[in-house]
């Protein structure tokens, strides 16, 4: 049965101060599940493979902006259990190249209105992202980014070491550090958001518009008709017919695309993150250092949230080597001596799909009806709303949005790479 979108929205419990109060008076017995758990229909107008933030956002914008509501999101695990719940929640848009700045700032602008749009508090906190410079080369790279960002309307400014310490008091700017800080680039609009809430908020809002979210539904095959066009997906919950498939499978993109006979310009690596024991608010912003490899912020719960690097080799283990995490902790202890005696509580890995130029692929594929959104590498969370928005446009119109036109798959054939790898000199 197909519901009119407005009808379903009426079913969704709106969050407001009033609804909180009313539920409190009722002993919180009246809350409903945030989204339905429907049985798969035999056919959908479009199927999104991957129920992470990007896939759910794609489904949401397909329903909201393109009135495509007979669609399903297929998730092999559970919503929020993949990379959406494994990242370090950092949001920024200070990328070097015009194409990247446009894409990531498109996302940042959507972030700024997302809680209202979804009626779900994603806890966006624009506390500023500060990227440290330790060498003359770092400073030159940072200045080039700052000027490029300004020309693209993206905020980014240079701070002296003293200004950096004023902005982030725990920062060690001593001259006798192994890699002394000679300045920092600050994007004040950058910050963090609560990653689980992003997945849940998009899932709830997409569901309210009629999108079927099918969890524990792993895709095992992609069927194509005689002309080569996609016609169905085979899943652990049965065969689902569809004319359009959007693959948003992050680290498993190569596996899924292989089902359609395509080889991708991707390699998958475990990327680690870890959190400390929770402490009182001490750390006011996000600090990153590409050169000595540190990413740190403090969650509202009080944990330090720390991003480590990727393992050197292709792997799907969701673990990562201990020496990778230890390397990052070395850097953090040097930058913030007050953290030297803190205990780390948990560490984990997520599988990230990395392209040769470290820019994503969002677009059509050689297979008619098959679209792909992948290659976000170590930094996809920040792009979630923008990625879903332009990918939904690509699927609905069968042509890219102007913002993702340059991120097409065949740039690896004609050489028009968007080489953020060279621009950042490290994973980002």
């Amino acid at each position, binding site marked *: 049965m197909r519901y009119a979108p407005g009808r379903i929205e009426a079913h969704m419990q709106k969050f407001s101060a009033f609804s909180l109060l009313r539920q409190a008076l009722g002993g919180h017995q009246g809350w409903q599940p945030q989204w339905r758990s429907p049985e798969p229909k035999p056919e959908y107008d479009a199927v999104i493979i991957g129920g992470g933030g990007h896939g759910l956002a794609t489904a949401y914008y397909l329903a909201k902006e393109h009135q495509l509501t007979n669609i399903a999101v297929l998730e092999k695990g559970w919503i929020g259990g993949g990379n959406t719940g494994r990242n370090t929640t950092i949001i920024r848009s200070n990328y070097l190249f015009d194409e990247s700045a446009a894409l990531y700032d498109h996302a940042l602008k959507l972030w700024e209105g997302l809680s209202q749009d979804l009626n779900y508090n994603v806890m966006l906190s624009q506390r500023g992202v500060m990227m440290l410079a330790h060498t003359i080369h770092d400073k030159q790279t940072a200045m080039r980014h700052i000027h490029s960002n300004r020309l693209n309307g993206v905020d980014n400014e240079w701070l002296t070491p003293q200004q950096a310490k004023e902005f982030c008091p725990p920062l060690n700017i001593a001259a006798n550090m192994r890699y002394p800080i000679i300045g920092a680039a600050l994007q004040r609009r950058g910050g963090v958001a609560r990653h689980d809430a992003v997945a849940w908020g998009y899932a709830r809002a997409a569901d309210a518009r009629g999108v079927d979210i099918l969890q524990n539904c792993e895709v095992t095959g992609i069927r194509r008709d005689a002309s080569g066009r996609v016609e169905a997906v085979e899943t652990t919950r049965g065969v689902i017919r569809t004319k359009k498939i959007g693959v948003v499978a992050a680290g498993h993109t190569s596996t899924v695309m292989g089902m359609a006979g395509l080889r991708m310009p991707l*390699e998958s690596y475990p990327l680690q993150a870890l959190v400390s024991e929770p402490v009182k608010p001490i750390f006011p912003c996000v600090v990153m250092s590409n050169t000595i490899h540190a990413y740190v912020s403090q969650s509202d719960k009080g944990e330090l949230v720390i991003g480590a690097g990727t393992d050197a080799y292709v792997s799907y283990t969701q673990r990562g080597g201990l020496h990778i995490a230890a390397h990052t902790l070395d850097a953090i202890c040097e930058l913030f001596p007050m953290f030297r005696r803190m205990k780390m509580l948990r560490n984990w890995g997520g599988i990230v799909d990395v392209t040769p130029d470290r820019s994503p692929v969002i677009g059509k594929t050689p297979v008619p009806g098959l679209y792909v959104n992948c290659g976000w590498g170590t930094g996809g969370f920040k792009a979630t709303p923008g990625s879903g928005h332009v990918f939904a446009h690509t699927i609905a119109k069968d042509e890219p949005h102007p913002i993702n036109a340059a991120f097409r798959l065949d740039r*690896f054939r004609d050489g028009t790479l968007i080489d953020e790898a060279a621009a950042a000199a490290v994973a980002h």
Partner: protein
Amino acid sequence: MLLIDCPYCGPRPELEFSYGGEAHLVRPADPSVLNDDEWAAFLFMRGNQKGLHYERWRHLHGCARFFNAVRDTTTDKFVTTYETGTPKPDLAGKSNG
């Protein structure tokens, strides 16, 4: 950290090695006849296997020689290592546990 069995030096810790990506990608004998699709396939497209993966390693801080390995990317366990230039090994009877 992985323990990697260099075919020349024996088992050594991962830190002594650098990773060389997918193995058995052969540079075209006559590059000038390739079209753009064939170049893209050679330069950029990768198997990225979930399961047995044929890959290159270099014992950088040891003998400094390249060699090939077969590793299960779902467990990170090595099935075998072998010298560069030799064909893909016959894995029948090899356990990946």
